[in-house]
């Protein structure tokens, strides 16, 4: 039983770790990975908390997470396209704010 | 304890040993090509032994067949990918280890 809460806390940790990386890391590919990790954290939290309805596991969060995984991959593909387009016009694949902080 | 159980235990432990050997090889061997060699031990023999050990315990022939199919697929993919990586490393001039 307490294992569910352990996994839920790992989910919380993944979410905030991803959030920190999203804010701090300059490269856009890192930011995309960070968003994915944040998503995984949320999914983990949802499914772990859905497991509290023993003996039968609550499947509604699981169904939502399955939808979420597919949406996450399509969003990742879109983000990667955006990143590639941006790096064609300005080198380094970084947001303007991060670049101006350099100078 | 039945004979099948004993056989399973032996096979599973053997499989685990080959996974350990593969990992140690991956960590300790000096270049890409020798590490590739270590990796295939885990792929082919390690998983093979574990699959055989579990197939003995399987409820039906179909379940055992699925286990064997999984192993064959890993074998196929492992062989193909190993060739591609070794070939690519060679073409790219990744250095051999020399004593």
């Amino acid at each position, binding site marked *: 039983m307490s294992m569910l809460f352990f996994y839920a806390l790992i989910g919380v940790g993944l979410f905030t770790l991803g959030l920190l990386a999203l804010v701090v890391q300059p490269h856009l590919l890192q930011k995309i990975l960070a968003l994915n990790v944040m998503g995984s954290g949320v999914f983990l939290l949802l499914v772990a908390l859905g497991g509290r309805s023993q003996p039968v596991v609550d499947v509604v969060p699981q169904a939502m997470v399955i939808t979420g995984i597919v949406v996450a991959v399509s969003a990742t593909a879109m983000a990667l396209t955006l990143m590639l387009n941006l790096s064609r016009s300005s080198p380094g694949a970084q947001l303007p704010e991060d670049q101006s902080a350099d100078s | 304890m039945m004979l099948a*159980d004993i056989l*399973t235990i032996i096979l599973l*432990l053997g499989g685990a040993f080959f*996974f350990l050997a593969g990992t140690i090889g991956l960590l300790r061997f000096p270049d890409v090509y020798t*590490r590739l060699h270590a*990796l295939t031990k885990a792929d082919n023999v390690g998983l093979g032994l*574990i699959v055989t050990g579990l197939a003995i315990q399987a409820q039906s022939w179909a379940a055992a067949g699925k286990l064997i199919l999984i192993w064959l697929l890993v074998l196929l993919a492992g062989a193909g*990918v190993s060739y591609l990586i070794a070939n*690519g490393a060679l073409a*790219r001039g990744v250095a051999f280890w020399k004593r």
Partner: protein
Amino acid sequence: MQNLYIILALFLLLNLLAGMWRILKGPAAADRMLASQLFGTTAVAILLLLAQIESLMALRDVALVFALLAAITAIAFVRRNWPQEPDDAG
């Protein structure tokens, strides 16, 4: 038997974590790719053991999918990230 399965699964997980050192250290991209290939196989083995523990046969489908798709990342690596023909890279 149950004990043996879960101990072996834990052992394989530890194996996988030990192999992580190779991904962290490299040195070549091919080394990292090799390590992740080994992890794919290890994950298949872990899933098969967990399937036996929880007697949940659907987990064998997960292992089957892993076995099928393990090659894709490596092929993407070889074909795209690491072109075989140097003058073909564009």
